[in-house]
């Protein structure tokens, strides 16, 4: 009897921890669902509460070349990863159009466009994602036909024989090759492009603003002397602008992922190129003439 009593005390009264019937709760799925259920136009929708995702950007960069305005319209697909309000932006250049100068329109071949190396050096941030909130991009640093040890600060190579000049478009010529519309003229050059974008949220899924551009060019040759002329390119930031819209379906935005593979290619984004921003024509008056 005594041993039974002790056994009850030591064993029979032990409390066993039980398992809960509650399931784990996940938030990412909830957020994705919320975005996907809303159908909206470009830049519309209530927002996803984060900039993380895929955006389509059109940059209308203004430069002055020989007192004439040259507009560069560049469409990018921008992948943004956000960590504690700081953003890593990965850009893909989908299309570049340059306005003509002195009647000559420079064409950037697809091979050149695809060879551009964007270099990740810093981060962007946004103070608020609400309408009126400020956005400052990471620095867009791109080298065209160049391989510099310090991409931001090294002086551009002066000579085509400099090993830092590379045939990045694989056409057998130094640097990258620009074409002249309706001409067989080719120009071989290296280029460093530095751009930062600052804007505000005009809707939770659209940012508009201006840019600061710095472009350095070195010509390493041409098929004809006329093509080899490289007059100074002067930034004209007061007339530069951009618009960036979310296109991944999150936060009520339009979803351009036509094949639903989770990635938005340039081809998938192309139908929306004309809707991002109403582009304008170059105006000589913007360069003081």
């Amino acid at each position, binding site marked *: 009897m005594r041993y039974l009593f002790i056994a009850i*005390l030591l064993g029979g*009264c032990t*409390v066993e921890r*039980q398992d809960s019937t509650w399931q784990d709760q996940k*938030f*990412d799925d909830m957020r994705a669902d919320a975005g996907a259920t809303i159908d909206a136009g470009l830049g519309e929708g*209530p927002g996803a509460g984060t900039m993380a995702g895929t955006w389509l950007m059109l940059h209308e960069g203004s430069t002055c070349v020989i007192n004439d305005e040259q507009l560069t319209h560049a469409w990018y697909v921008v992948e943004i990863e956000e960590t504690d*309000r700081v953003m890593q932006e990965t850009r893909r250049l989908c299309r570049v159009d340059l306005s003509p100068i002195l009647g000559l329109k420079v064409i950037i071949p697809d091979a050149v466009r695809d060879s551009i190396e964007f270099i990740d050096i810093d981060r962007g941030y946004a103070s608020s*994602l609400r309408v009126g909130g400020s956005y400052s991009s990471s620095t867009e640093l791109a080298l065209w036909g160049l391989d510099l040890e310090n991409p931001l600060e090294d002086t551009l190579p002066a000579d085509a024989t400099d090993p830092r000049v590379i045939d990045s478009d694989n056409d057998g010529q130094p640097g990258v090759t620009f074409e002249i519309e309706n001409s067989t003229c080719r120009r071989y050059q290296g280029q460093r492009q530095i751009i930062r974008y600052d804007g505000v949220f005009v809707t939770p899924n659209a940012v508009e603003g201006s840019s600061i551009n710095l472009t350095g060019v070195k010509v390493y040759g041409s098929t004809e002397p006329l093509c080899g002329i490289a007059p100074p390119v002067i930034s004209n930031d007061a007339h530069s602008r951009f618009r960036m819209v979310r296109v991944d379906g999150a936060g009520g935005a339009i979803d351009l992922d036509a094949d639903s593979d989770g990635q938005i290619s340039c081809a998938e984004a192309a139908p929306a190129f004309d809707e991002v921003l109403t582009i304008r024509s170059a105006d000589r008056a913007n360069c003081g003439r």
Partner: protein
Amino acid sequence: MQWPTAASAGPFDLYGAGARGSAMGAQVANATGPWAIYYNVGALSEADVGLTVGGFATYNRVEVLLMDRPTGYDIPKLDVANSPIPTGAELNSRQDTEGIEPLYGLTFGGVTSLGTKRLRLGFVAFLPTTELLSMSARYNDERERVFSNKLRFELIDAQPQRFDAELGLAYRLTEWASFGIGGTFLTAANVGTDVYLQDPTDQENIDINLDVRTENQWGLLAGMQLRLPHNMMVGVSYRGPVSFRISGENRLQVSGVSDDAEQPRQTLDWTPKYSPGSLALGFAWSVGSYEIAADARWVLWSDYRDSHSQRTNFENVLQLRLGLEYEYTAEDRLRVGLGFDPTPVPKQTGRTNYVDNDRALASVGSSHKVEFGGQGFEFSWFLQFQLLLENTVNKDGTAQECSESATKICDEISDSLINPRTGQPFPEAQGLQTGNPGFPGYTSGGWIGALGAEVTF
């Protein structure tokens, strides 16, 4: 503003009064000595004149084991004003409850006739030897997360840690009927502070005046004992509820707030100790050397007030006791008892975590009369075992936003809370976020033991 405390029954409610009562359990019809005041003050008229001194100690192995929390329900860190303390930043981490405070104390009792044959006046008292009065604070819902972050047995933990005193007066009306009346005593307090805060940014330096006034509170005791033919007895008793309630107000003066009407006021209202009212019917029958007793006590827990003086949805319950006393010599008696105390606490599947269990009781004891120095003494002892029947609580799978009236497990961060930076709801605030220590459930159980002795002379 509410302040947390705890509440429960007194030491006699939990362990019984006197060695005989603690050993047999059932005493309403056949209580003896001064302890009749507790069980049935009407039976005090049969008590021998004398004094009783004793004591008892308790030991326990009770536990509340919390279920593991599923992921996704924690309180996130949000960059928004007045957001709750995030999970992991609490003073104490969420933890199981292992054991309750043991109780050690002395018991006293005395009976006098005041020179009148049919009259008896008596008292009983319990004096804790650890702390005269122990009060500690607990919320019974998600608010406790930022304090102890654990659960506590509502009725058996700190509550019995208190001084208890009862008085009774009984008169034998006839040879077969006795009537008694008495009171059980507790204090109450009115507490107030006047606080002056000169620099709201330096809250470590404040001036405080204290104003405390205590008052006596008595719970009514009444009972009747009837002697029936064939050595049978019937007892009926009533015990009124009694509580230790603390109320008052903190008045704050903050420098820079010129209008007195705008100065903060903090209302205090605690009920840290509560013994419920009860109605009891007892029956006893003496057969040869045996005395059999049975009690049924209807305990009015529905009037229970929790530590914040708020009414609960506790239920009235019927406690049962069955006792046997065997007189194996003229001087020696053996006692055994059984009992069952159903919990008055409903299943805590919602917001609150009042932890309590059904209890099955078994006890044994004996008494022995001796003579020493020409004076007669009776030594008695008891050993009591209370098994807390295992109770598993699973919180219901539905939730509501937290509010004063919320009864379900509640969401401490509204799904519609807007991130001031994004203008969007916080993704991590969607669904249920709760720091309720009892979420998603828990299991309680274990056992309590008590050993005591007394001498009567």
